[in-house]
């Protein structure tokens, strides 16, 4: 029998996860800003807009701005790399930080103010998040390592990439129409 003794208060969870998401996003912005480039003003604007959008989404408990914020931050980073041909190793960190920010932001927004979570629920989610970020880091490192090798880019590789992109768009459209 349980009266739900060991619980974590929702405001505390929301505060911590929101702060974590904003911190991760701020780190991405720092990386973008310190990278320099010719379109610094535009990079600053995109980074600021992304951070503001995420903060607004967190404050209003709206999930809509989160993907936009991630895309804007990613655009700011890519803009800084537009005139450089060498592969940037910091993309691994930026990718993992963006995922961490999005995960924490969705956690914060999904936390209902009235629903108190028991400690094992929070611990399980933290463990899954840690594992996911570690896996994402490894995958990104491998991806960048493979891409830095001199591999001829043939029509087959381009077709596979296009198919993956089309499949992703189709999935977005399907999810937009109805649930899973």
């Amino acid at each position, binding site marked *: 029998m349980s009266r739900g003794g060991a619980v974590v208060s929702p405001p505390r969870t929301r505060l911590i996860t929101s702060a974590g998401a904003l911190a991760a996003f701020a780190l991405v912005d720092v990386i973008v800003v310190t990278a320099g480039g010719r379109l610094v003003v535009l990079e600053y604007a995109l980074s600021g807009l992304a951070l503001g959008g995420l903060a607004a989404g967190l404050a209003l408990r709206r999930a809509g701005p989160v993907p936009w914020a991630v895309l804007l931050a990613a655009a700011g980073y890519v803009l800084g790399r537009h005139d450089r041909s060498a592969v940037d190793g910091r993309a691994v960190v930026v*990718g993992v930080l963006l995922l961490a920010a*999005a995960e924490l932001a969705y956690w914060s927004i999904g936390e209902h103010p009235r629903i108190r979570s*028991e400690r*094992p629920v929070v611990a399980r*989610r933290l463990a899954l998040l840690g594992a996911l970020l570690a896996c*994402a880091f490894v995958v*990104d490192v491998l991806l960048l390592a493979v891409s830095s090798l001199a591999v001829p880019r043939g029509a087959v590789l381009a077709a596979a990439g296009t198919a993956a992109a089309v499949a*992703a768009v189709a999935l977005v459209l399907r*999810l937009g129409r109805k649930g*899973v």
Partner: protein
Amino acid sequence: MTLESTATPKLVGYTAISAVGLIASLVLARPELVALTAPFLLALAAGLALARPPQLSVRVGVEGDRLLEGEETSAHVVVAAESPSDRLDVYFRLPPGLELVDGTNPVAIRLRPGERRDLELAVRARRFGGYVLGPVYLRAGDGLGFVHWEAATAGRPQLRVYPSEAVLRRVLEARDTEVFAGNTVARVKGEGIEFADLRRWSPGDPAKRINWRASARRNELHVNESHPERNSDVILFIDSFAEARLGPEGTLELAIRATATLADAYIRRRDRIGLIGFGGILRWLVPGSGVVQLYRLVDALLDTQIVLSYYWKDIDVIPPRTLPPNAHVIALSPLLDPRSVGALLDLRARGFDLTVVDVSPVPFARRPTREPDTIAYDIWLLRRDALRHRLQRAGVGVTEWRSGESLQMCLEEVRSFRRRVHA
């Protein structure tokens, strides 16, 4: 239990990020973009791979189905899982008259395969009434929050909360009594304890009734006559045509509390009690005695509510068995609806022993501050006074009872009026 699945905004958001990232990396041919998109694709793949609809069974119960106002009981929500659930939100909906005293509701729990959890909630009854608890809403989520499964339980326990009763030291005695033994001294003469009169002995009178002292003084045999102790029929007439309400309290609630108090007091005196709920919906209970009748009456009271109706009703709609000829009718009414006032005057005209407890709506109607409104308010008060006088002129004992006042005091006021009228 059938669960309905829903995609969360996170699933849509991650898919959108992945799609845009992949297209952009193809168009711009930059490996960094793939590195930015890959974590989101990985999260999507992992989330959808881990997402399995949970196999759950839920049982809801309450310890005991009857309570008194202010008492506490325990509600149990037992959740059993055959498959794991990383996050299960459980919300047991409580109706407004009940409040949670101890326990966490709603709560998010984690269940392992084969685990069974009993969530105990201590619930206090704030207000009397009949309540249907629940349903229990469940929302299960996968570990990463991409998909939700939702369901609500079909089984809903019921709880009846009885009003707390005040103690009455004395109640109004009926003018006429019935034939069964009770606590009221009858006006007629018969077998009893209470001395009534002396009369000459006549053949057949038992020797134990001879008053020897009076017989010796008068040189002929005289016997004592006595009043028997009989029960009486009391009909509690509750007016549910209209009520005055301010916040959580209203005249109907007060009338129900007073009716329960009176019913309890009369049942203790072995009187027969009946009920007439006169309003948009007509309810009645044929007179009876005993604790079972008390429970029946209070159960009927819990279902009494104001139902708006424009249909003109008079006492002819009341079944004759509900109104025995010698019954003492005690009406609890805010005297707001002319139909109930008309019915009360009609009852009196037909010779019923009638008492009206005017459950005053005045405390529930704030006095206005502006000039023309105050005049209307004062006229309304005067018309209420005039109505009470009209009832008194018809021989009806009327008392105004306000929230917070003692019902006993009001009954004593009626008692003195009845004594004057009968004298």
